[in-house]
């Protein structure tokens, strides 16, 4: 095998009417890497995944899987996918479904193994439509990996999962990634991206805002956070303090993002503005917000159900 990237977007764009859902996306994922596509709802994650799987074609630019067209890689059985939308396929058992999916691939894993990896062994003979939401999600994961593909693509895989099911899911995913497979998943949960991906690609308005490890993103967002109580004092001068890159006032509390927290704190102390002073390294959450300049509320909104 050559060292072709498993996934490559080359200036790919896709518009729906006036909305540029994916806007000049450039991204290469080497084989064996686990990558998170992180972004708010409507950031272009699902569109990017649709292009990647050949469900859609880009208006301009191109998408390659293992050096070829997505449709070719899919037809060759090198790709498995867990799509976001959809209800479970009715009137089949879990085992029947996985047996069928496995047969469509050239070198599938044994069905028992797919069942075990997804934690479905005990549910194998149940009808898919009679399972709970979390169980159905695991079935869809099992469908994605039943063919033993080199690349699995998971669109918001942990939607509708509770905390425990989520943990089990990620354990299963890591088990699969450890075999040297490439995994690309989308999420709007920062913690998930940070905890389970080698690399985080932050998408917003169809463009890549940042690309790196969680640590790199934090560093890119700059230094630290300094917060203190204003006690009714003026706020205009805060932006002129040394190191400060952004100012946010929440009620009576000022939150300053700074790339030199020492200098900022010294300047504040000189003005005696240190009531309830707090200095913290920037969190990934703050890093993400700094990158997207959007309020935190928008980040946690549940996906609209289709």
């Amino acid at each position: 095998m050559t060292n072709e990237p498993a996934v490559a977007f080359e200036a790919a764009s896709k518009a729906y009417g006036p909305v540029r859902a994916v806007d000049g996306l450039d991204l290469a994922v080497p084989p064996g890497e686990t990558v998170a596509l992180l972004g708010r709802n409507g950031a272009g994650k699902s569109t990017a995944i649709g292009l990647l799987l050949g469900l859609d074609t880009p208006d301009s630019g191109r998408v390659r899987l293992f050096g070829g067209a997505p449709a070719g890689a899919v037809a060759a059985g090198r790709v498995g996918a867990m799509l976001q939308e959809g209800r479970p396929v009715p009137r089949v058992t879990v085992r029947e479904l996985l047996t069928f999916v496995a047969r469509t691939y050239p070198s599938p894993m044994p069905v028992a193994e797919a069942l075990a990896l997804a934690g479905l062994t005990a549910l194998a003979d149940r009808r898919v439509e009679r399972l709970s939401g979390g169980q159905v999600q695991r079935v869809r994961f099992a469908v994605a990996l039943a063919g033993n593909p080199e690349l699995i693509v998971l669109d918001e895989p942990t939607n509708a999962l509770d905390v425990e099911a989520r943990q089990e899911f990620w354990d299963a995913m890591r088990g699969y990634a450890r075999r040297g497979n490439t995994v690309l998943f989308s999420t709007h949960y920062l913690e998930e991206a940070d905890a389970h991906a080698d690399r985080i690609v932050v998408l917003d308005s169809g463009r890549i805002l940042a690309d790196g490890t969680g640590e790199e993103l934090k560093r890119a967002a700059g230094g630290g956070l300094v917060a203190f109580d204003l006690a009714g004092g003026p706020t205009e001068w805060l932006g002129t303090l040394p190191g400060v890159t952004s100012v946010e006032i929440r009620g009576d509390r000022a939150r300053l993002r700074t790339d030199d927290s020492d200098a900022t704190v010294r300047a504040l102390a000189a003005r005696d503005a240190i009531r309830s002073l707090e200095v913290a390294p920037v969190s990934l959450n703050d890093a993400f917000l700094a990158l997207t300049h959007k309020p935190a509320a928008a980040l946690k909104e549940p996906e609209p159900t289709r």
Partner: protein
Amino acid sequence: MITAYVRLEVRRTLRDAGFTISTIGVPVMMYLLFTNLGTDDGSFATAAMVGMAAYGALGAALSLGTGVAEDKSTGWLRQLRVTPMTPRQVVTGRALTGSVVVLPAIAGVLLAGGLANGVRMAAWQWAAVALTLWLGSLPFTLLGIGNGYRLSAQTTGVVNVACNLGLAVVGGLWFPTVLFPSWLRTISEYTPTNRFAELGVAMTEGTAPGAGALAVLAVWTALFGMYAAVSYRRSARTV
């Protein structure tokens, strides 16, 4: 690959209680009801048997489209697109599924004819009737698939029921067309269902199927085939 798909889809279809009742139960019941009301010289029991078996096959073939529309709305068709199965294999598998699931519908009514109504024919005639009805259901499978790919799940259900009842009644599957006013009888002769049943009846009488019947059916098969192909192509981009 296609075999595995057909097996899965046949299972799914036969597990649908609505499908089984409407395509096997209802035609058998209607057949027994119609043929045992009033007196009969035996010829009606045979003709009605073919008509009702054709009706069952028609319903089964069309309901395939309802299944396609359902799979479109649940996202199953989209999921299939990310497996190595090509869309062409999927639609072929669907059509083959149709050819399998019409069989119990045909067999149900023929069994009722032979066992309950004492219809007697030579063994080759039974086989010929079954085979004719089986092959002749192809245009209806295509019509169902066309509807399924083109329309939403709800609309497909309604349209398929309308096609089913309309084609069955006008085609004379329920009541012999001799009872129709002459204008309706003329229309009836151009319906695929009427000619479909005519083929089956020809087998029961041991005569060769008429050229007119074959020509009308061929035209409908081509039309429905084009309809299915166009609908499929249009929806394959959006599924």
